C-alpha cells in the first residue's frame, strides 16, 4: 500500500486578521511538515500559512547577541539571560500580544505584574481610541452572524476591507446570503465614507468623500441633521449639506443598520472622539431604527488581548504595574508615549513588530535598551533584539483561543509541527515567569 504523503486539516481558523475565518482547509506534507496548499483563505491568510515553513526568515533556535551578532544558544541560557534583563529593570515594557493566543496573553499579564512593569498591546496604536470612546459613551454592538442575517444598510467608515479584511465582505457584510437576506448583495445598501476612493468604495452603492481628518465635523453635522436641526453651512468636511441630508434619510430608513469602522477613524486627528461621536450617532439612530457598530480589528487576536487584559486587570491596554496594582492611562502608560519620553529601561516584545509601525523616535528609544523578542520571523524589531525566543505559531503549530473582531472566542487548531526547537508562546512565557520568580526569590 502506498502511504499518503499529504494530510488535510479541515475547519481551520485563520490566525491573521480579526475576521478569523473558520473554514480553511490546509494540506500539509507528512514527511516534511510543510504547508503545501491552503484553500478558502484570502491571499494574506494563505501567505501566513506558507510563512510558517522553514526559511531563512524563520527562527528555529533561541538566539542571543554576542560580539554584536545574534548567535544560536540553548533555551536555558536564553531564558536565564532574558529573566536577568527583566529582573534588573525598573521600568520594563511588555508589548505586543495581539498575534498570539489568549492563554499566552494571560501569562504575559502575570509576568508584567510580577515584574512591576508596563503591559500594553497593539490596540495602543490601532483601536485603543475605540476602547477609550467605548468607556466614555458605551457601545451598542452585535456579532457578525447577526449582521450577515439581518443588516440591510452597511456603512464602512474609514476602513478598506477589500484589502485589510478580504473575506469580511463575502462572509458577513456585503455579498453573503443571510437568513433574512436571501438575495445577498442585492438585499444590502452599502455606503462607504472615506477620503480616498478605495476599492471598497468603488463597489459601494453610495460613496461619501470626506476631507482627510475632518470626519468628526461630518458626523457632528449628521447627528444635528438627524435631530432636525438645519445646518447653517453649505458643505461640511467637503460634503454638501444636501448629500448629508440624503445620507441621514438612508440611515433612518434602514431596518437594520451597522457601521464598520477602521483606522481611518481611530488614527486620524480627533482619534477616539471620532468613535465617541460615531457611537453617539448610533445611539440617536436607534430612536428611529435598529443600528449597531463594530470596529474592524486588525491583528487576529487583538480583541482577545483586550479581553484577557481586562478580565485580569480591569483594563484593556496601557497598564502600569509599577505600584503593585494595575493602573490605566493611555497617554501616560501607552508604549509610544513612554518611548517618546524615554521612560523604559528594557522591553519584551511578544508577537508584534513595533519597529515597523511605531514613530521613528520611539523606535530609537526602544533600541537603546535591552530588547527581548518572542518572534517566529526575522522582523525589523527582532534583528535589533538582544535575545530572540522562537515560538510556535499559534493556530498553525499549536492550539489556543482567539477572539474575533466581534468578541466571539474561537478555538485555534494545530495543522503541523513547528520547525527546530520552537516552543509555544505560552511555554516560553511560563518558563520566563518561573525564572523571574526564582531570581526575585518569590
Amino acid at each position, binding site marked *: 500500500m502506498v502511504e499518503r504523503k499529504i494530510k488535510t486539516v479541515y475547519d481551520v481558523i485563520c490566525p491573521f486578521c480579526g475576521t478569523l475565518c473558520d473554514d480553511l482547509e490546509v494540506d500539509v506534507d507528512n514527511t516534511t511538515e510543510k504547508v503545501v496548499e491552503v484553500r478558502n483563505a484570502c491571499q494574506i491568510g494563505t501567505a501566513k500559512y506558507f510563512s510558517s515553513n522553514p526559511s531563512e526568515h524563520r527562527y528555529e533556535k533561541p538566539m542571543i547577541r554576542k560580539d554584536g551578532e545574534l548567535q544560536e544558544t540553548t533555551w536555558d541560557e536564553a531564558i536565564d539571560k532574558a529573566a536577568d534583563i527583566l529582573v534588573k529593570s525598573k521600568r520594563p515594557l511588555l508589548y505586543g500580544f495581539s498575534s498570539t493566543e489568549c492563554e499566552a496573553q494571560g501569562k504575559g499579564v502575570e509576568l508584567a505584574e510580577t515584574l512591576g512593569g508596563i503591559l500594553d498591546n497593539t490596540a495602543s496604536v490601532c483601536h485603543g481610541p475605540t476602547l477609550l470612546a467605548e468607556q466614555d459613551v458605551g457601545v451598542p454592538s452585535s456579532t457578525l452572524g447577526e449582521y450577515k442575517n439581518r443588516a440591510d444598510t452597511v456603512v464602512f467608515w474609514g476602513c478598506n476591507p477589500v484589502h485589510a479584511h478580504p473575506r469580511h465582505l463575502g462572509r458577513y457584510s456585503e455579498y453573503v446570503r443571510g437568513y433574512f437576506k436571501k438575495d445577498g448583495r442585492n438585499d444590502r445598501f452599502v455606503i462607504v465614507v472615506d477620503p480616498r476612493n478605495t476599492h471598497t468604495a468603488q463597489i459601494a452603492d453610495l460613496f461619501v468623500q470626506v476631507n482627510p481628518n475632518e470626519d468628526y465635523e461630518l458626523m457632528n453635522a449628521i447627528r444635528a441633521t438627524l*435631530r432636525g436641526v438645519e445646518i447653517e453651512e453649505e458643505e*461640511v468636511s467637503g460634503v454638501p449639506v444636501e448629500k448629508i441630508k440624503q445620507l441621514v434619510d438612508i440611515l433612518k430608513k434602514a431596518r437594520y443598520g451597522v457601521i464598520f469602522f477602521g483606522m481611518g477613524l481611530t488614527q486620524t486627528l480627533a482619534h477616539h*472622539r471620532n468613535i465617541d461621536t460615531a457611537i453617539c450617532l448610533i445611539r440617536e439612530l436607534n430612536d428611529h431604527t435598529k443600528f449597531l457598530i463594530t470596529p474592524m480589528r486588525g491583528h487576529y487576536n487583538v480583541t482577545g488581548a483586550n479581553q484577557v487584559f481586562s478580565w485580569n486587570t480591569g483594563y484593556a491596554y496601557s497598564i502600569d504595574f509599577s505600584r503593585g496594582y494595575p493602573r490605566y492611562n*493611555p497617554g*501616560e502608560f501607552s508604549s509610544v508615549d513612554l518611548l517618546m519620553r524615554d*521612560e523604559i529601561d528594557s522591553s519584551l516584545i511578544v508577537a508584534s513588530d513595533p519597529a515597523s509601525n511605531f514613530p521613528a523616535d520611539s523606535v530609537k528609544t526602544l533600541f537603546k535598551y535591552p530588547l527581548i523578542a518572542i518572534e517566529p520571523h526575522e522582523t525589523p524589531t527582532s534583528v535589533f533584539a538582544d535575545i530572540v525566543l522562537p515560538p510556535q505559531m499559534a493556530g498553525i503549530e499549536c492550539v489556543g483561543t482567539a477572539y474575533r473582531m466581534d468578541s466571539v472566542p474561537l478555538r485555534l487548531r494545530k495543522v503541523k509541527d513547528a520547525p527546530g526547537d520552537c516552543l509555544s508562546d505560552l511555554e516560553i512565557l511560563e518558563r520566563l515567569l518561573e525564572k523571574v520568580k526564582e531570581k526575585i526569590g518569590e
Partner: protein
Amino acid sequence: MAEIKLKLKKTHKFPLEADVISTDVFAGKSNDEIKALELYLGNEVVQLGEFFDVTGKSGDANELKIIIDGDVSNVKRIGEKMTAGEIEINSDIGMHVGNQMKGGKIIVHGDADDWAGAMLKGGELIIEGNAGHYTGSAYRGFWKGMEDGIIRVKGTIGNESMLWARNSKKANKWPILYCGAAGSFLGIHNHGGTIIVEGDVDRCAGADQAWGTIVIKGSVSRKLPSYKKVGEVKEVELPNGEKIKGKFIEYSGDHSVKKETNGRLYIAA
C-alpha cells in the same frame, strides 16, 4: 502660616510619583517623618528624603504652605486630593498636579504637564505658564470631571481640556477654567462647566456640550456645524455673576446632543 520647603537635590530618569507631597499628608509631621514618606520611581519605592531637602516646620493643613524648588518637571501627582493650605512650585511641574484637589491653592511658576487639576473638586489651581492636555478633565471612563473650583492658566492649554465638567445648581458648584488659549475639543461633553479663553482655540470647542458656557475672546479654527447662531451680545454674564464685556457672537449648542439647548458658545465678533 507654617512653611515647609522642599528642594529637589537629585536628577532622576523616570518620573517620581509624589502624591504624598500635599498639605494634608505633611500636616502635623516632623521633618524626619516627612523625609521618610514614600515616593515611587519606576517599580522602586524610595524615600522623599533621598530626593528632597526638607526644611522649615509643618503645622495644621489649613495653615500650611509647601514651597518647592528645583526642577520638578518630571515629578507627578503633587497636591493630589489636597483639601486645604497652599503649595507653591517654583518650576515646571510634571503630570497630574492638583488632581482631585478639594480645597486650598496651588501656584505653579512655570508650565504644567498633562492632567493638571484633573477632576478638580474645589480650591484653586494657578499655572503661570502653559498647561498640557486634559487640563481639568475627567480621567478615562469617568462621566464626571471637574465638579467645582477654579483653574487659571496664563498660557495655552492642550487638547480635551475640561472634559466632562459637571456643575450642580443644587449644591452651588460651578467649575470654572480660565486660560490664555486652548487646543482642540475644549470642554467636550460639557455638563455645566464655564470656560473663558483670552485668545484662540483649535477645532471643535464645546463638542457634545449638553449645557454650560464657553467664552472665546479670540477665534476658533473650526466652529462645529452643529452650533447655531443666536445673535450678537455686548456682554456675557457667567453663572458666578461675573460679567465679561466685549462684542461676541452667541451660538447655541451642541445641537448634535439636543434640538433645544441652554449650552452657549460665545466667540469674539
